[in-house]
Structure formats: structure tokens, C-alpha cells
């Protein structure tokens, strides 16, 4: 049979990560993001010198601000896509999901990296972090200890190593002196890969649940709709589906921005994975509230009830609609619904730390409104993350594409970058010797 039928040409299959070529890194939007990032880092210096009181809206009544509650506890959920997708791909053998692994790993790394920066700016005695290494000072029961150990370990060890293959690949093609190193490193990476990857799935389960456990110790200061002994489980579970939804959103956005073809079968599989996670989560949350006998609070809690329904509905309604093919196969509808799920999930992760956190007090009322400085620093972490993402996808083979696009990128680099011709790119069939 002739394989080049009409349907074969229209169905897109992502086969390979290909850098976004022919687009300059620095443009107007990039400069805008970078300027916020730079303004933020200047303000970080002010915060370190002047102290937290001058730079933030925090007080003794409300000791945790958006750097912790938003940049760390909420945004790291967006970077958690790599563990549900990875587990589905490697353990439940959803082989096609390997195509988006590089994107989701990159997002994870950048989000966690900027999250770590946020913690470093937020803690006011960072020079004492060396205590992580003094075993006799560990308070292993503290969820904070678990977070402080797990998050840097996850980001700087398994996640970092998982992100090295695109860089090595780039070296192989564009940096001939580095080829010896690549040939030496790749077999080692392949041997150790299963051990590292398994660690990359165990650690996020641990610290994402510990982030939920952080709020457990505040006891009944958190409104009962959110405060439950199940909070760690709900937190890690929410992180899983928020991460998948974020991956869908960012891949779609990249494809639409740089006019790349979309592989619908992989999108379907991601949506399926997401709904497998979302519906049991919703059921568990309602069941937990019912078991604790707090059912009426869903309607009598004033504006906290409104937030509760906003969370539940902005997760349930899009997930429900995405069961229909019409909604999945329309890029705009898919994007919009996944964005709603991300927003609802973020609200769920954020509420118990801020809206629903009502410290018990008499007379003196502590309100928390983030200052402009605080917001700019918080935004600067996000902008740093996006800037690094833009640089990475334009220089490294990360975003998935059909094989055809790889050959196009090859001819593009051959014609527009003469120094690459000098490096021998395209002459030796790019055949790495270690694989023979």
C-alpha cells in the first residue's frame, strides 16, 4: 500500500524535539519580561538590606506572604507535570507521552529553580541553611524540614540530570570540541537513568504532600473546608493534574505562537490522564468534607464558600466538557478549558494559606496586602522563569515536532549560520559513534 495517502499527510505525529528556529530570542516581549526580572533582582537587594518589614506587607499576625504561599506553594504545582506524565509514560507504558517529556521537564526545572530563589529571598536568616547538613539538628517530623530537603534535592539532582540530554545533544551538533565529553557521558546517563528517574517521581510526591502538611500544623486556624488530615494527599494530587494541565497549555501556546503542528493523539492522551486524576480528586475532596461533617459549610461560609465553589467548578466544568471530542480537538477550546483547570487548581493551593487562614485573634486584626515591592519581586521570579524557557526552547531541541521539521531546522542552520558549517554540521550524517 502507498503509505503517503491523504490522511497520512494531514495527521500530525510528534517524533522529535526540535528547537524553534528562525525566531530571534530578543524581541519586545522578551525585553519587557527581562526588565521586570531585572527590576525584581534590584529590589531583592533592597529587601536584604532593609529587612522584611520595610519591603513587604507582612506582620506578626500574618507571617507568610506571597513569596512562600504563591511562588512556592502554588506555582510549584504548575511545575509538577513531569511526575504524573513521567509515571504514565514510563510505568503505565503510555509511550506516546515521551514526546512531551522534555517540555514538561524543562518547565518543572525552571519553576522549581525560581521557587527555590523565592524561598532564599523569603527566609530571613539564609546563612543558617547549612543546618541541612548537620544531622543532629534535623527535626524530621517538621513538614518544613521535608520541604527544605526535598525541593532543592529534587531540583538540583534528578530534575537537573533529566534536563541534560537536550544540552548534550546541542553540544553534539554545534560544539565539536564537546563531542568527546558527550560520547563519554551518554552511556553513563543511559545506565543510571532508571534510578535517577525513579527518584524524580518519588521526591515530588514527598515534598508536594509536605507542602500540604505545612498547613496541618496551623490547626483550626485554617477554615474547616480546607483544613483536613487529608490535606497532604489532596495537595499532591492537585499538583499532579495542575501540572498536566499546565503542560497542555504551554505546549499549545508554543505551537500556536510559532505555528507548529499539533499532535492531537498526544493531546487526547494528556487530557485522558488529566481527567483520570481530576474526577477521583473531586470525589475525595467532597467525601472528606462529608466524613468530617462539614457539609453545610459549603453553603454557609460566606465568601469562603464562594471561593470553595469557584475552585470546585473551575476544575469540574472544564474537565467535564473535555470528555467530548469536540472540545479536545479544537485548540482554542482545549487551551481555554485547561487554563481554567490550572486557575482553579492554583486557587485551591493558594486558599488555605491566605484566604482561609484566619489566625485566632482578639482586638488587633492583622490583614495582609502585598506591597508593590513584594509583587514586583514575585513577578520577577515568574518572568525569569518565562525568559529562561524562551531561551531554552529557541536554542535546545525541546518542543516536539514531526521529523520533517528537524530536517527544515537542519537546512536553516546550514544556510544561516556559516560557523556551523565549519563545525562539520550536516556533513557526517550526524551519526553519533557511541550508538554503533
Amino acid at each position, binding site marked *: 500500500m502507498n503509505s503517503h495517502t491523504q490522511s497520512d499527510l494531514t495527521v500530525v505525529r510528534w517524533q*522529535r524535539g526540535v528547537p524553534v528556529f528562525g525566531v530571534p530570542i530578543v524581541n519586545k516581549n522578551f525585553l519587557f519580561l527581562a526588565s521586570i526580572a531585572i527590576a525584581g533582582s534590584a529590589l531583592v537587594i533592597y529587601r*536584604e538590606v532593609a*529587612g*522584611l518589614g*520595610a519591603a513587604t506587607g507582612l*506582620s*506578626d*499576625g500574618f*507571617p*507568610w506572604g506571597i513569596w512562600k504561599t504563591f511562588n512556592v506553594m502554588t506555582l510549584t504545582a504548575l511545575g509538577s507535570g513531569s511526575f504524573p506524565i513521567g509515571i504514565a509514560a*514510563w*510505568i*503505565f*507504558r503510555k*509511550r506516546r507521552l515521551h514526546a512531551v517529556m*522534555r517540555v514538561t521537564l524543562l518547565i518543572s526545572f525552571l519553576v522549581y529553580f525560581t521557587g527555590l530563589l523565592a524561598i532564599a529571598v*523569603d*527566609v*530571613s*536568616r*539564609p546563612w*543558617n*541553611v547549612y*543546618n541541612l547538613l*548537620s544531622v543532629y*539538628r*534535623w*527535626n524530621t*517530623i*517538621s*513538614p*518544613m*524540614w521535608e520541604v*527544605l530537603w526535598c525541593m532543592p534535592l529534587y531540583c538540583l539532582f534528578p530534575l537537573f540530570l533529566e534536563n541534560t*540530554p537536550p544540552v548534550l*545533544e546541542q553540544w553534539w*551538533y554545534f560544539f565539536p570540541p564537546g563531542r568527546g565529553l558527550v560520547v563519554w557521558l551518554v552511556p553513563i546517563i*543511559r545506565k543510571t*537513568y*532508571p534510578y535517577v*528517574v*525513579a527518584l524524580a517521581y*518519588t521526591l515530588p510526591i514527598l515534598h508536594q504532600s509536605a507542602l500540604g502538611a505545612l498547613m*496541618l*500544623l*496551623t*490547626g*483550626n*486556624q485554617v477554615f474547616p473546608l480546607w483544613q483536613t*488530615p487529608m490535606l*497532604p494527599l489532596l495537595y499532591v494530587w492537585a499538583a499532579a493534574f495542575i501540572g498536566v494541565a499546565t503542560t497542555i497549555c504551554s505546549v499549545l501556546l508554543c505551537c500556536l505562537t510559532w505555528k507548529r503542528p499539533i499532535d492531537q493523539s498526544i493531546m487526547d492522551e494528556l487530557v485522558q490522564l488529566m481527567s483520570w486524576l481530576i474526577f477521583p480528586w473531586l470525589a475525595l475532596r467532597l467525601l472528606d468534607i462529608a466524613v468530617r461533617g462539614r457539609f453545610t459549610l459549603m453553603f454557609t461560609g460566606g465568601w469562603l464558600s464562594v471561593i470553595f465553589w469557584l475552585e470546585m467548578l473551575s476544575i469540574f466544568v472544564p474537565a467535564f466538557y473535555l470528555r467530548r471530542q469536540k472540545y479536545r480537538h479544537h485548540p482554542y477550546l482545549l487551551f481555554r478549558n485547561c487554563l481554567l483547570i490550572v486557575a482553579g487548581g492554583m486557587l485551591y493551593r493558594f486558599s488555605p494559606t491566605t484566604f482561609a487562614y484566619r*489566625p*485566632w485573634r*482578639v*482586638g488587633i486584626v492583622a490583614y495582609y496586602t502585598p506591597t508593590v515591592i513584594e509583587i514586583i519581586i514575585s513577578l520577577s521570579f515568574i518572568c525569569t522563569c518565562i525568559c529562561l524557557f524562551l531561551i531554552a526552547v529557541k536554542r535546545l*531541541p525541546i518542543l516536539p515536532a514531526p521529523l520533517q521539521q*528537524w530536517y527544515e531546522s537542519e537546512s536553516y542552520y546550514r544556510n544561516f549560520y556559516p560557523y556551523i558549517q565549519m563545525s562539520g554540521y550536516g556533513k557526517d550524517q*550526524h*551519526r553519533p559513534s557511541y*550508538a554503533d
Partner: protein
Amino acid sequence: MNVTRRDLLKIGTLGGAGVAVGGAIGSSAQEEVPTPPRNAVGMLYDSTKCIGCKSCVVACADANGLQPDTRVDSLHQAPNDLNSFTKNIIKLYKPKYGDGATFAFVKRQCMHCVDPFCVAACPFHALEKDKVTGVVSWTPDKCIGCRYCQLACPYQIPKFDWDSFNAKIVKCEFCKERLAAGKEPACTYVCPPKAVIFGRRDLLLREAHRRIQEHPDKYFENRVYGEREAGGTQVLYLSAVNFDLLGLPHLSSTEHPSNWLRWEERVLKFFALPVGIYVGMVTFLKQNFREHEAEMDEEHKKTGLMPQL
């Protein structure tokens, strides 16, 4: 070892069921009540005896070398709450028209809980409970300044030095230097009407119950605040007005940190579950990775492009 997906599901379900059953058994068993050290020190504050002279506030600042807090009123030392300059404060409850209560003073400082939230929260034991006296104190070179103790404390006690780049956690440490020198804390030492007294916690508890028995209708609910609240505290309160009005929150005896964290303790016992998950995942990954690798190399032979992991 050849493990199929069916096996994985089986193992997962069995493990999950095991954890669930274990948890159910654990939670139905008698709740553990924390016990204070045998010689735990304590304070008993009787709000009905307090005359509001604030001698204790001055004595506390003097004994702990605290700077006078003149931020509210530049003439007087008049802090409006516990803060980074104030480890001990006297507050006044003024009755509203028609709520039936009389006015009352209340002395606020660290409660030195039997099972403290701040100690459970602190990642590096910067806040520690003394094994002999039960005093909760702060060590500067273990503290990273995460302020989790402030978030966790139900009494809103640990205060933070917001205006410094080398910030400190400030809270009552029961005048531990004076205790070590064989003296009682400064506040109990100076109190003119002996509204706050120092002693062993068990003896003070007995004294409080004696006072309640002597004057059966004098004290609110004939109750000693701190006997059972959040697993008990070493600072005890007697009052004629509702404790809620004095800013002492209503906490049940089971609301202590080891109870809130019981699930984490069970799940992370000996780190068995995480290690189990890790080992299980490695087993499956190795098998699936080999297949993936073979497929990758085949692709490489076909296209001549570098295999992408």
C-alpha cells in the same frame, strides 16, 4: 524479575489497603495525651488578683535586656501587643455594654505548651523544649528565619524582628538564665499582689483547683485554662471572665501537633513507604527503559539522527 502491570496494580491496591487499615486501627485507638516533664516549671496567673500595674512588663524588659518599645507613644513604654521588643504584656479587657462581664486584666507571654506547635514546626530545632524544665527557648544559629513557628502557634506568641536584616524570633523563654541561677522569673518575682506565681506545674495545678474549690462561683466555668488546652500548657490561667474575651483561644485537648501530624508519622514511619515506592518504580523503569532504548536505537539506525532520551 518480570513484573507485569497487573502485578503493579495488585501491589498498589494491597499496599493502599494495608495503609488504610493500619490508619483506621491507629485512629480508633486511644488518643495519646502528651505529658509534661516530671519537674516541669510553670506559672499560674490569676486574672482576678491582677491590678494592672505592669511591673512585670518592666521587670521582663529589664531582665531580658530588651529595648523599651516607644514606637506607639514616644514618651512612654507602651507596646500595644507582644512584639520584637516585648516578651510579656498586660492587656485589659473592657466589657461592652450588656455582656455581663466585669473588666479584667490578662498577662500574655509564651504558654510553654506541653506539646508545642512551634517546636514541631521548626525544621532545625531552633525552638526547643527543655527536657528537664519544659521551657521552650530559641537558639539563633539554628534558625533560618522561615517564620513557620509564627504560623503554627495557636496563641500568636513568637514575634519577629521585621526591621532588621539579621532578624530574630522574640518570645518569652521563662528567664532561663535566672532559672539556671536558682532564681524565679522576673515577672513572678516582682508581682506585688502575687497575681502570677512561679512553681512546679503539678503543684500550681493543685493550687489552682484549690482556689476554685474555695470560691466555687468566682472563676469562669470553674476551669483552669492550660490544663488541657492543645494537650496542656505550662502557664496556667484563672479568670472571672470568658477566656475567649481575654484572647485565649478555645482549643480542645486533642488539638496538639502530634495529633495533627499522626498521618504523616504513620505514612513516613522508618521511611518505608517512600523507599518502597522508589524500589518498585526502579523495577518497572528498568524493564520499560530497555524497551524504550531498543526502540530509540532502531529509530537512530533508520534516520541517522541522534537518539533523543
